[in-house]
């Protein structure tokens, strides 16, 4: 996970990369402030903002009451009046308490006001399963937000993107939602010392391959890369695309890859029905149907509320073995079970 520049790389974590991005944003623009539940004195429920209260003070690092609608709405209003708020929502499940504000206001006001009202707001939240925190803290609802015109939806899957997407999001004149997969926070990797803002308009090919395209985002990118490794050992050369931006989707990168490999497997931690994977699938069918050699396959979360017990949680989620099987299925080969 290096960005290929000449600057020396150093070891860091996804969590530290998020924190570095927040610190830089607060340092470089006095209009920026961070607010949310426990972002200050506690240091962030995932420790992303640890130390920022001490550095920037309570005006700019604001602990809020447990009032998702009120503080997300306040972020919208502050953005409308010239600030650049970063609002942290503890998990995507809790964001539903603010869905009214996000959909009916943040995403809507510019169009509904005839272009008069802009909402340059960034909302960050943790998403995803894997920590045995059961069905009210584990879901992947990125697709709810990716459904909504007026929003941009980002899913940083790498340390570079965790470090670099925030700054680009803050430059955007419209609301941007950043989904940080909770399992990624402790992931370690290398980051260039001069790492900074990254573009958010393109998907990334994380592994080049010629036999099949695996399309993933967020927490499923690493699982897809692991699957590709296993496939390589079996002589199948899979390409892995990290969508990075879930709205708007980068159709060009997806279609170009599938046109080359002629096979597509979409991996999505959301539920299958009405999923982001379904949307990607539809776009491939619309734009590359005649280039396909096999039906498109999807590896999604089973259609259950995420259970607590470890073996059940693991069974509910997309896993490398399932991805391997799905790819082999598109090759006309039996899976390894």
């Amino acid at each position, binding site marked *: 996970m290096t960005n290929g520049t000449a600057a020396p790389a150093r070891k860091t974590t996804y969590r530290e990369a998020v924190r570095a991005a927040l610190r830089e944003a607060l340092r470089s623009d006095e209009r920026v*402030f961070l607010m949310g539940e426990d972002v200050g004195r506690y240091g962030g429920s995932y420790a992303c903002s640890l130390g920022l209260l001490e550095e920037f003070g309570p*005006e700019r690092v604001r602990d*809020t*009451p447990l*009032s998702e*609608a*009120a*503080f*997300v*709405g*306040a*972020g*919208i*209003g*502050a*953005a*409308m*009046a*010239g*600030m650049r*708020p970063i609002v942290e929502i503890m998990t995507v499940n809790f964001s539903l308490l603010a869905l*009214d*504000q996000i959909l*009916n*206001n943040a995403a809507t*006001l*510019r*169009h*509904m*006001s*005839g*272009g*008069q*009202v*802009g909402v340059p707001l960034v909302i960050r939240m943790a998403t995803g399963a894997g920590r045995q925190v059961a069905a009210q803290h584990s879901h992947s609802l990125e697709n709810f937000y990716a459904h909504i*015109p*007026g929003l*941009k939806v980002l899913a940083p899957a790498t340390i570079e993107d965790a470090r670099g997407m925030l700054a680009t999001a803050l430059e*955007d*004149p*419209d609301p941007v939602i950043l989904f940080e997969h909770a399992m990624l926070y402790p992931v370690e990797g290398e980051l260039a010392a001069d790492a900074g803002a990254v573009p958010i308009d393109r998907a990334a090919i994380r592994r080049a391959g010629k036999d099949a395209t695996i399309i993933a985002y967020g927490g499923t990118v690493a699982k897809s890369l692991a699957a590709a490794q296993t496939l390589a050992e079996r002589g199948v050369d899979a390409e892995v695309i990290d969508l990075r931006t879930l709205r*708007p989707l980068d159709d060009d990168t997806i279609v170009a890859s599938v046109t080359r490999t002629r096979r597509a497997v979409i991996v999505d931690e959301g539920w299958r029905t009405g999923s982001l994977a379904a949307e990607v699938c539809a776009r491939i069918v619309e734009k590359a149907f005649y280039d396909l050699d096999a039906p498109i396959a999807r590896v999604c979360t089973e259609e259950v509320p995420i259970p607590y017990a470890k073996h059940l949680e693991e069974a509910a989620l997309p896993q490398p073995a399932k991805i391997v099987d799905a790819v082999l299925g598109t090759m006309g080969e039996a899976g390894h079970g």
Partner: protein
Amino acid sequence: MNHLASGPEPSPDFLQLDRNEALSLLRSMVRIRRFEEKCAELYAAGKIRGFLHLYIGEEAIAAGVMPLLDADDAIVSTYREHGHALLRGVPPGAVMAEMFGKVQGCSRGRGGSMHLFDVSKRFYGGNAIVAGGIPIALGLALADKMQGRRHVTACLFGDGAVAEGEFHESMNLAALWKLPVLFLCENNQYAMGTAIDRYESEQNLALKAQSYRMGVERVDGMDVLAVRAATRRGLELVRGGGGPWFIELVTYRFRAHSAYDPELYRSKDEVKQWRKRDPIVLFEALASERGLVGPDDKVVIEQEIDAEVAAAVAFAEAGSLEPVGDLTKDVCASRGTP
């Protein structure tokens, strides 16, 4: 609910009122009344579609509040906002054109009656999710406070909003952070068709705000002078940095909730009783009793207002439709990525 429906006492403010102010208050209320009577007519004629929520009966609130706000103060309103917008200075033609769905409308015809916006006047809608505008008002006020501006955000909402969670979350946050918001609760005693005694366990709404430790006042919303006096007091305190202030304005909606409402939930007699407290009639009577307004004044005002309304209608009629090619314009600031 009729605790304020008895005969009005002239408020002490009356003693300082001069003729020009009296005429201005009367004119403000008549402007809204005549404009909306025309809207109802145009709705029946099919020129205005969608929902149309009339403010008729509640004009004393807008007339008492809006002229006291500074140009730099912000306003967040509801879907019953024609009166607020007009008295804030949103041009009547742009308001009418909006209802006609024309591109010359104040929201380019995208919003209609419920979503009047004019950022040049710091008029931020026109919000039709009950209580959904209140958190936005907090944010506008927070930005002003953080940037060291002494502006006030006036946040209007109805009694129905008080039952919503967003109301309570917002009262708490505004008081906790001492945000410069003047909350104006227009209590017309109905949440659409449900009477307040059928949906509120505590019908004194100011009491709810008070429990969040902010100053409150409860006034007769049919008495324009009482509204004005309370607003003046509230604005002074908020502008002085004392945090939010809450005014409950008890009022009554004379017309149906919207054009689709058959009014099965209230008696004609109840409406009749409240119409006796018509804010325009009450004020005109008191003002003429004190010799501030003569018998011809209202006639002159009505003629002038009728001309203004006619001009607004003509402007809307002459307006054009937004090209369908611009349908997705302004979904996002940059085109091509809605």
